[in-house]
């Protein structure tokens, strides 16, 4: 099977063709937004981080923005920093340029304020969009795709239908030789032994267990009771009782194939096949992690219904809750009928076909309704 995508200089294939306007720090975020408002074809990455971070969080923010910019759906990049922020704009720009992607950087305090920066960036962005628009979609084998998976606004149906359907689509792509990534380490708690068992080596299995333990320790060290935070109030109303129950349903979105590696948040998997990136269950920064990992189409199962998409990557909303589907058709792209639960491979094949259409340009509901702006960055803290 094939799809129509945009070829990139590093050999990857995009499903969208955006010029990204990426502020390194919140102080440059309004400027980035203004530049993007000026130039059609650009997409800003609106976030509120980039300063007062611990060294670990700073390194994470730097690599996340760099790898986000390297997502194949982005044709060219404008980076905007403030100047006094601790972010490594030069390192980020160099990393992007190394992959052959056009990148320009602007420092507000050097250029001389908002108006001059917006003017300069607008001029550059206009040219970048013009150049990007000359790249035409070509037919590629579907193994050039990389899928991502998210679940949010979960209820019992997410584990029964939504996530297994996504897992079935993952299995199809991974079996063919394509790549797929999932995340949400919080929602491995209580199910990590099942993931570890699927690891390619015992060492990778141990790493999965260690990543989950590290996440859980953050709650234990602070004396925090995770109940009521995750599962959320909405999850509990939807029938999910504990994090263990939620996790056992959540991991099915990763399918059943061998897990090749687990990576830190913001890293770009170097291994093929199915991989995991560390990250929170919190949807917005989790979507960022998978976009930074290189996912070019994402699935998002939601029992209770959530509109959230992702700035650079089309997100296909999946629900197995019939009431939610009827109520929120504006936001949900794909319905899994639980009456057909025993035929999950067939449902996965239908979802896979939908993903190929989306990869080729069909707009998702989150894209059409502009629900794909605010994802943000994950930080562990403390913030200084």
């Amino acid at each position: 099977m094939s799809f129509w995508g945009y070829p990139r200089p590093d050999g990857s294939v995009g499903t969208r063709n955006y010029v990204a306007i990426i502020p390194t720090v919140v102080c440059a975020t309004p400027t980035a937004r203004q530049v993007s408002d000026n130039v059609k074809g650009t997409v800003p990455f609106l976030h509120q981080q980039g300063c007062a971070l611990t060294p670990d969080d700073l390194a994470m923010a730097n690599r996340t923005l760099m790898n986000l910019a390297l997502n194949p759906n982005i044709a060219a990049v404008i980076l905007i920093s403030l100047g006094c922020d601790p972010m490594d704009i030069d390192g980020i720009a160099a990393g992007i340029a190394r992959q052959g992607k056009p990148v320009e950087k602007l420092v507000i305090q050097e250029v001389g304020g908002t108006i001059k920066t917006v003017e300069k960036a607008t001029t550059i962005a206009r040219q970048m969009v013009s150049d990007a628009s000359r790249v035409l979609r070509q037919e590629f084998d579907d193994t050039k795709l990389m899928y991502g998976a998210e679940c949010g606004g979960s209820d019992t149906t997410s584990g029964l239908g939504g996530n297994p359907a996504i897992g079935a689509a993952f299995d199809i792509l991974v079996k063919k030789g394509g790549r797929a990534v999932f995340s949400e380490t919080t929602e491995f708690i209580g199910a990590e032994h099942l993931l570890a068992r699927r690891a390619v080596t015992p060492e990778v299995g141990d790493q999965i267990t260690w990543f989950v333990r590290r996440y859980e320790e953050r709650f234990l060290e602070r004396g925090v009771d995770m109940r009521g935070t995750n599962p959320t109030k909405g999850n509990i109303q939807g029938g999910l009782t504990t994090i263990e129950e939620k996790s056992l349903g959540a991991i099915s979105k990763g399918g059943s194939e061998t897990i090749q590696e687990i990576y830190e948040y913001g890293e770009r998997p170097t291994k093929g096949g199915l991989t995991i990136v560390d990250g929170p269950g919190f949807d917005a920064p989790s979507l960022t992690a998978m976009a930074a990992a290189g996912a070019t189409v994402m699935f998002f199962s939601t029992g209770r219904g959530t509109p959230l998409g992702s700035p650079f990557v089309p997100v296909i909303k999946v629900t197995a809750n019939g009431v939610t589907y009827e109520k929120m058709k504006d936001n949900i792209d794909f319905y899994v009928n639980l009456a057909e639960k025993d035929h999950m491979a067939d449902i996965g094949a239908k979802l896979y076909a939908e993903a190929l259409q989306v990869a080729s340009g069909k707009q998702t509901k989150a894209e059409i309704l502009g629900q794909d702006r605010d994802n943000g960055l994950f930080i562990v803290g403390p913030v200084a």
Partner: protein
Amino acid sequence: MERKAIVLNSKDNVATALADLASGDTVALEIDKKPVSIKLVSPIQFGHKFSLANIKAGTPILKYGEVIGEATQDIKVGEHVHVQNVASTRGRGDVVKAVAK
């Protein structure tokens, strides 16, 4: 006929409702392809769980054939199984804190 509830694994001691069910309803289930019927003693909302057996406090609750938490009180067969009678044993910083004191 549409299933009113589902048991995901033969080891499970709970079933999940696939429709809103009333207290007193008798629900027909299939466990390991064998028919089982459970009379509900609480109303069970769509997506919520009910017990397949009498469960003693402290017993693990099993769904997907895996442990999802522990009964915090005795649970009767057909009773609603949720946060009022089951607790997670993971991410419990509150327990760690209480032990430290």
